[in-house]
């Protein structure tokens, strides 16, 4: 299909995230947008740069005991525990619906072992409509003593290499921010053959119910998301953009067009909106429009012109 050139005052918002061509840089973060249909009353989902679906595992999972979420200052903690119907149900029920709606789909997957990841990837072969696979490597890694996959560079490299070997779909590892040296992890992802990286996942946190004198969340710990973590996300993307030559899908606390511009200026090629959706379900659309307006006001022909502009 040819793009209409008659549309009034539209900038070209398209971006290339490694091998992926997105109509615009605005995606919705995994776990905050379900499998796409939940927000259809609010957003025309085919207008999104891409939809990143809920983290999916090999087998169905029932998730953690409640309470699963709790609000914190300018943020929230979640411990959903990867409740999902499993990859088979995704491929049979959700993917066809997404295909029908002409959405660019990024499948987010999670596992406990490298084998889990490669098996899910193999299962997706032959299914049309998955533009890329985002590897959530922030799950507890039993083999590594409970620390997360995403915190050990060697494991990161191995898991990326392993999935690259079994699938031709572009691979985007999603980095955990709970690490000493994010650059090292990004380098490992690149060494493993990642096509792009996604960052940041949630910071690990908790809250206490002082009346009951116990943790609020059924799972004790949860992932901190929302505006509270934006400064950390920006810093990590800045560090990685400066040190590693790999496209970045950036997010963490984005609540406005201005926030999205901050992420682009520290080096993100595309951005994701997560917790912000709960506050304002129209946010992705508003950011697309806001970026369009920003480009016109600043005479930009491509977002490339401001990508990494704030990196000294």
């Amino acid at each position: 299909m040819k793009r209409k050139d008659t549309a009034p005052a539209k900038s070209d918002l398209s971006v290339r995230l490694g091998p992926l061509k997105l109509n615009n840089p605005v995606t919705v973060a995994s776990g905050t947008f379900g499998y796409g249909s939940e927000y259809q009353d609010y957003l025309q989902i085919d207008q999104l740069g891409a939809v990143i679906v809920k983290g999916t595992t090999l087998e169905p999972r029932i998730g953690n005991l409640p309470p699963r979420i709790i609000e914190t200052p300018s943020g929230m903690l979640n411990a959903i525990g990867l409740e999902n119907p499993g990859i088979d149900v995704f491929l049979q029920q959700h993917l066809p619906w997404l295909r029908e709606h002409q959405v660019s789909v990024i499948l987010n997957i999670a596992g406990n072992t490298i084998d889990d990841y490669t098996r899910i990837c193999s299962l997706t072969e032959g299914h049309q409509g998955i533009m890329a696979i985002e590897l959530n490597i922030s799950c507890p890694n039993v083999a590594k003593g409970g620390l997360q996959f995403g915190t050990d560079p060697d494991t990161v490299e191995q898991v990326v290499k392993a999935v690259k070997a079994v699938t031709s779909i572009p691979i985007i590892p999603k980095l955990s921010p709970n690490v000493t040296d994010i650059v090292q992890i990004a380098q490992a992802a690149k060494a493993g053959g990642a096509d792009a990286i996604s960052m940041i996942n949630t910071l690990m946190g908790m809250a206490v119910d002082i009346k009951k004198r116990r943790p609020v969340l059924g799972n004790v710990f949860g992932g901190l998301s929302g505006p509270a973590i934006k400064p950390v996300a920006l810093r990590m993307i800045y560090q990685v953009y400066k040190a590693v030559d790999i496209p970045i899908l950036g997010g963490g606390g984005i609540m406005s067009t201005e926030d999205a511009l901050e992420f682009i200026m520290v080096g993100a090629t595309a951005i994701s909106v997560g917790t912000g959706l709960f506050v304002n379900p129209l946010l992705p659309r508003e950011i697309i429009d806001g970026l369009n307006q920003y480009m016109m006001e600043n005479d930009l022909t491509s977002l490339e012109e401001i990508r990494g502009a704030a990196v000294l």
Partner: protein
Amino acid sequence: MPLEKGLVIVHNRLSHDMYQLEFISPEMAARSKPGQFLQVKVNALNTPLLRRPISIYDVDKSLGSITLLYKVVGQGTEAMSRIRTKEYLDVMGPLGQGFNTSPPGRKILLIGGGVGIAPLVYLARVLKAKNYQVKVLHGADSRRNLVAFEKLREIGVDFLPATDDGSAGFKGLVTDLLATKLKASQIDYIYTCGPDAMMKTVAAYANANQIPGQVSLEEHMACGVGACLGCARQLKSSDREMVKICKDGPVFDIQAVEFSVQGEVSR
């Protein structure tokens, strides 16, 4: 319109901590069913960050307005109480599955505890319009918190209050009123909403007397539309699957729920 900036036309303090807010949104009003709720953005500061779930208390379809009844319990509802008339309320909804408005039988009992009366008022209006015989029990600490009194009188239902201090109606718990003053044989269907302890007693009564009915549950929410899986709850400890309160509920059949499966967060 599932997302609305509705002009606030009435915002009153009804008692020490109870407020009533009415806003204009003809489309939302037209689509709202009893038992559904809205996700309210309480201010423009993103603090508190998340929207607050508030039930649809009443609907005026001719005016195209929705009324909310809420109690100030924390910073979200406190911020909400500062919204001025002529400002615009940022609301999502109507959300969730409402009450069954075609219950079997004719003699219907509604039991609300505290601000739990909120979703029952619009339900009373709809059932009454369908010529059901509606009796409403409302428990409150004292007379001044029987804030739905006027609306219920206007709707024309049978209203039996219970107050802790005996300042109006039955002195004692609304569940004691139910147990001592009503005949189970005179009840075809029960709806209830209120504190967990109250709903637990009502559910036990309904089950013991084999009266069908529905309850409205609460859980912390983020998205309100079924996307985040944050409001999951096991209805019974034997259930393998969890339900999403926001999308599968907040209304569930009274027999399907086991109370005290988990506690509420107290903070």
